[in-house]
């Protein structure tokens, strides 16, 4: 095995590999930064291109694309409250307030460094630990999924809003929304009202575009934007972008978030090894835990760099780790890894128990390429930041209409569906209303994303146990998370300041 790791390193050190990674990362950041364009779409569309090149070029390209995109989503999240990808939804919580305070460059730099740190740590763990860590997937069966998801619901409902009751209401609303469509076990139609478009359920991207971007556009249009005011606002951003002193991220600020970043990287890596959970959930869980462990929890939601760090580390740390169940079992954790699976198969790489035994060196060369793409992301990202931040200079009466058209095109392009555009608009209204009444959006998103898995885990477990709920208690990991749920709840309630 160590011999293969070294052989892989040798195989990967080629200029064309570096080039392919460079293009992948850059393209990924652009795709991620455009709301509505997702890493998934880009990977699916570009997948056929990789058929014609060797695996060491094609696969790192696709994975670098994903890494770039998961970082890229933070850019509009910070600048215009619009997550470019679902994974950046947690970044808006503190990123946008920071931008409003004129600290957008700090936030952008933190997002970059946190993303690279999270991805890097997770890649190192994957590279050296894939053998024994992949077996974690073997331990997580249906009852474990149920308990783990229950625990993560609780964290997010409690920690991301100011009112726990409102958080729980939002969470239940999200859970209800997740039931629209086909039930995950038998395929019965629920709440579809005879509409064919609803049988597939609501799409997450249009929903996110609506809840964050469109609702923000509605909020912005509420304010009377005088010419003078918009000039002031945009100059506020631009002055800070180019002034050298004091506006970039200081080393001290980064170090202060060091523990948060490390913690989020490990949590994100752990979440990545469990197929099906994903970057969005990881971002929010890390955010929630960071808030609960922070010395200044009251700053979260108002512009805490720690919040941005936790969210961005958390989402990127999933990338490397999600390759573990994919490579060792051929189990894709999400759509991106499913497409990667196809890429592997076409390239003649057979994910599964024999992959490392028969094709070790090339698989390790791909993992080394992944590790290297973090360096590329760091360099390219840092130099691109000053130009990216120029977006904030645009007066809002140009910026937001452009964002709006991007939102419509983006919502349409996910499934070639006009219905999705309609969904985005409806959720724009819902997001606006939720904001007015101070209902937090993250719990809604998380329960919506995890709802189907939560329900099918419950169903599968009960089929296995013949209907007995005791199955959740008999299995040690499941029991552990079940006990952890109320314990964490009590611990957090004591730590967090009571808010009216």
């Amino acid at each position: 095995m160590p011999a293969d790791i070294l052989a892989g390193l040798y195989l990967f050190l080629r200029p064309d590999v570096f080039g392919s990674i460079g293009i992948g990362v850059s393209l990924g950041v652009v795709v991620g930064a455009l709301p509505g364009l997702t890493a998934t779409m880009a990977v699916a569309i570009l997948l056929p291109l990789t058929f014609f090149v060797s695996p060491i070029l094609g696969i790192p390209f696709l994975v670098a694309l994903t890494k770039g995109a998961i970082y890229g989503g933070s850019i509009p999240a910070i600048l215009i409250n619009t997550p470019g990808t679902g994974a950046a939804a947690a970044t808006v919580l503190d990123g946008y307030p920071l931008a409003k305070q004129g600290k957008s460059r700090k936030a952008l730099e933190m997002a970059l460094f946190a993303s690279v740190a999270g991805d890097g740590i997770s890649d190192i763990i994957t590279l050296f630990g894939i053998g024994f860590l992949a077996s974690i997937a073997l331990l997580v069966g249906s009852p474990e999924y149920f308990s783990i998801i229950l625990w993560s619901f609780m964290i997010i409902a409690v920690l991301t809003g100011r009112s726990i009751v409102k958080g729980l209401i939002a969470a239940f609303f999200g859970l209800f929304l997740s039931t629209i469509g086909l039930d995950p076990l038998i395929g019965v139609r629920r709440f579809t009202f005879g509409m064919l478009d609803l049988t597939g359920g609501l799409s997450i991207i249009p929903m996110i575009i609506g809840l964050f971007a469109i609702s923000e556009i509605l909020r912005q249009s509420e304010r009377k934007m005088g010419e003078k005011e918009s000039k002031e606002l945009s100059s506020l951003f631009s002055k800070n972008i180019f002034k050298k002193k004091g506006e970039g991220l200081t080393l001290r600020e980064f170090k202060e978030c060091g523990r948060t970043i490390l913690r989020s990287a490990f949590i994100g890596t752990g979440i990545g090894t469990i197929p099906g959970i994903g970057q969005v959930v990881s971002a929010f869980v890390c955010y929630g835990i960071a808030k609960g462990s922070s010395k200044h929890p009251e700053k979260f939601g108002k512009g805490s760099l720690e919040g941005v760090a936790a969210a961005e580390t958390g989402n990127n740390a999933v990338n490397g780790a999600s390759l573990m169940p994919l490579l060792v079992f051929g189990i894709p954790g999400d759509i991106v890894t499913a497409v990667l699976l196809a890429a592997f198969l076409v390239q003649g790489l057979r994910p599964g128990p024999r992959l490392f035994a028969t094709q070790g060196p090339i698989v390790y060369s791909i993992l080394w390429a992944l590790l290297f793409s973090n360096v590329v992301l760091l360099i390219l990202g840092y130099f691109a930041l000053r130009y990216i931040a120029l977006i904030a200079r645009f007066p809002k009466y140009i910026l937001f209409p452009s964002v709006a058209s991007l939102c419509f095109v983006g919502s349409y392009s996910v499934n070639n569906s006009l219905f999705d555009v309609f969904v985005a608009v409806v959720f724009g209204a819902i997001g606006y209303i939720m904001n007015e009444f101070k209902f937090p959006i993250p719990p809604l998103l998380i329960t919506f994303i995890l709802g189907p898995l939560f329900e099918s885990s419950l169903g599968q477990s009960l089929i296995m146990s013949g209907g007995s709920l005791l199955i959740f208690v008999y299995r040690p990991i499941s029991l552990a998370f079940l006990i952890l749920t109320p314990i964490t709840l009590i611990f957090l309630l004591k730590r967090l300041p009571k808010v009216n």
Partner: protein
Amino acid sequence: MARKHEYVKEGISRREFLAFTGVGLGSALAFSRLARGSPKWPERPITAVIEYSAGGGTDTITRAEAAAMEKILRATINCTNMPGSTGALATKFVWGKPSDGYWWLGAAEYNRALRTLGYSDTVPWKDWQFYKAANSIQGWAVRPDSPFKDLGDLIDAAKKKPGKILVSNSGIGDVWHVGSILVKKATGVKWEEIPYKGGAPATLALLQKEVEVCASGVHEQVEFLRAGKLRNLAVFTDKPLEVEGVGTLNPVTKFVPEVGSFAPWGGIYTLGLKRDVPVEILKKVKETFLGAMDDPNFNKVLEKRVIFKNPKVGADADREAAVNESVVAWVFWDIKLESAKVNPKGLGIPRPEEFEKWWPPKDYKPRI
């Protein structure tokens, strides 16, 4: 000023201008008549709308077919995905497009379940013309330490302990679940089915010891079979199946001869065009499709995915589509699948046992 004056003098006269225009218009008309007179399909890119998401089996095979057909047709075929509702969204979309041969449907299993699920009124063998490329094959697998040596052992054990043995599948109503139902119906045994989100998680559940048997595609189990981490009980074919790196696998008919008429059973990769597309175009698609079956890259994709080439076009495809509809619609109805809303009887779909007598029905006419 002087230059302008010169220009007028040296330029063309009105008469010449009119003459040139006349010739120009006349020749344009003449050529356009010529062009219309010999329609050359395809003149612009073709769009293939795939019923499932990127990266899956249907997607990969359809894209590989398209790539091979592009070379023969010398035209561009753009593949796009429109997943949802077991293919209903893509089907509805292509159905609404003009019947000009530029809109194709990348479908699976001839859309055989859509009518009975209430998702579409269109009839696969009457409203569509399908071209089938290949099959994936169902297999039942166990862990190496399992007491079941082959499918016969599983059936015997299920007879002794009805409803107690746990078998994973990729979803209720999915290909592998229906395959298991066919065996259960023929033998009268009962075992408990646990649905997972796809063949890969269903296989993982077996490794995790959550279930005793996994019913999924051989292509989903193959790496584990090759590594010796799983053992195969049988495959849904009527002859022994050679799988590279694993050996010869038992056909299901060795233990349950009655299901032979359904073999081979598994995923079916079918390309569809609307039936009222001009016959010349449908015929050209047929030639191109069959040519693509010999394309080396296409065959490589199939081989890598352990999917078996088994092309059917024209009347053969129509018949296979009708058989599949019949089998699946009645299985769904008989097991009272909640999502199967429409009674096959009302749709005029015959029971599988009566299919031979019923085919071809009076209103059926082969198209190509």
